[in-house]
């Protein structure tokens, strides 16, 4: 479903402090499966995740989403792909302070121009599904770690994306919440979603819901498991 062909990503290319974060990676990621990029800090897994999620462009190589080549797309088309195909869960959750949980969840859908009432109803269904509907009016900064995490997941799902991308989603969570997160990932998998996670947490890549673990080191694929 997602194919990476000879992907290289060099930051500050051509300068003395150039850094090759991803170095000649080629791989295919299956649809409706959970894939984890695993590796030490600085190994390039977050960059690889950003490349797959169209948040950055490669220095070299091509990425195909289904039959469509996406690295050459002009920015406004790429924005559309990013908005409708991917849902993102960030390490720090990146909830917008000062606005409510409900508004945070609805935010990525605003550019699509859906009717506000219908959107609000959909967002509330999601919040209910993840058990945080009672907190819908709370400001995001008042949430506990688990609530913030579930809000971030709801926000990632608001546009009903095919692919969920999560970057170190359990980095700030205790063991109970991390397990809870992986249970949610399992639920997303049963709903035919593709989930791609970058993590060096054993609770993540050791979870039974994970179909494939790809170990990254120095920007290259070192090993594959499962």
């Amino acid at each position, binding site marked *: 479903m997602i194919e990476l*062909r*000879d992907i*290289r990503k060099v930051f500050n*290319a051509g300068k003395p402090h150039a850094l090759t974060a991803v170095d000649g990676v080629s791989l295919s990621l299956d649809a409706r499966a959970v894939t984890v990029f695993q590796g030490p800090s600085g190994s390039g897994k977050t960059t690889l995740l950003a490349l797959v999620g169209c948040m950055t*462009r*490669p*220095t*070299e*190589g*091509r990425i195909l989403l289904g039959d469509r080549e996406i*690295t*050459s*797309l*002009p*920015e406004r*088309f790429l924005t559309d792909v990013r908005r409708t195909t991917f849902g993102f869960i960030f390490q720090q959750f990146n909830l917008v302070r000062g606005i409510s949980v409900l508004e945070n969840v609805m935010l990525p859908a605003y550019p699509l121009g859906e009717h506000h009432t219908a959107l609000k109803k959909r967002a509330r269904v999601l919040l209910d599904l993840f058990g945080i509907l009672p907190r819908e009016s709370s400001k995001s900064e008042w949430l506990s770690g688990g609530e913030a995490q579930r809000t971030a997941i709801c926000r990632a799902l608001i546009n009903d994306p095919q692919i969920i991308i999560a970057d170190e989603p359990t980095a700030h969570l205790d063991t109970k919440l991390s397990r809870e997160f992986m249970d949610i990932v399992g639920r997303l998998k049963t709903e035919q979603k593709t989930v791609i996670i970058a993590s060096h947490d054993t609770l993540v890549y050791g979870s039974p819901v994970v179909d494939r673990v790809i170990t990254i080191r120095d920007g290259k694929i070192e090993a594959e498991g499962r």
Partner: protein
Amino acid sequence: MILHPAIIALLVSSILITALVLFAFWYGVKILRFWDLRSGSSLQLDLERRTYLISTVLAYVFGFQLVSLFLLIYTADSLSTLFTGAMCAAGTFNANDYGYPLLVLKLINFLLAGLWLTINHADNRAYDYPLIRKKYAFLLLLAPFIVLETFLQARYFLGLTPDVITSCCGSLFSANSSGVGADLAALPAVPTQYVFTGIMATTTALGIAVAVTGRGGYAFFLAAGAAFIMGIASLISFISPAIYELPTHHCPFCVLQKEYGYIGYLFYSTLLGGAVTGMGVGILKPFRSIPSMAVIIPSMQRRLAVYSVLFYASACLLTLVAVLRSNLRW
């Protein structure tokens, strides 16, 4: 050289435009030589990123290029008080040998820049850069004209001295003089009015046909070009005398002055707008067969045809008002 703020603005802006066009020219050569969308090489990916930047820069540069035509005419008009014999921009452009060639080139570049912007707009609406080679090949063709314009403009302004005795518009656009202006002034008014009406009616009919059926793009391209030329000829032949209410005064520049409500700017804007949008319909026509353009181009052509018809209809309306309000009768 006369130190006038508008002259300095025009010179500086034309140098900047030339520098940016030459920068884009360099990338245009690289794109024509190395562009290969199937390749994932770092050069190809770099070109893909650059072209986004360059087409944005060029859109602004050529946008200013369009406006600068009017700034040049306005400047020439406002400088006319400095030259003995000049009454309007006609005399200022005649103050040295570079004035009229500059004006003609500026008009040509206006049309070419407008057509480049049309192609660029179409290309940017597709996801796979279908017109990239065409638009950069067009840029390579356009760039020498832009450089020549900067050269002529510099020679023209640097060669202007206030003590020059120049001709007034009355002698430059007189039926008894020689030259293109005089030939146009000598056109018989009534037959010219019939030809003007005929060409404008034909252009409108073809434009409506393009807007409704999507067909007749090339014919409309020719008609829109002919309507522009006929519009300028008519302005000199009978519209200007109607506005001045003086059968011997054919100047196409005095209409730009305050005494005539700056109506000339409206005339030129509508004629140039009609020409660019109308010719844009034809220039896009060959690209309809490209798969990613199959939906984009027909809708763009229809919209451009409507704009062109509206521009030319506005020019006709201005002409009608000028002729009907005038006490001059032929």
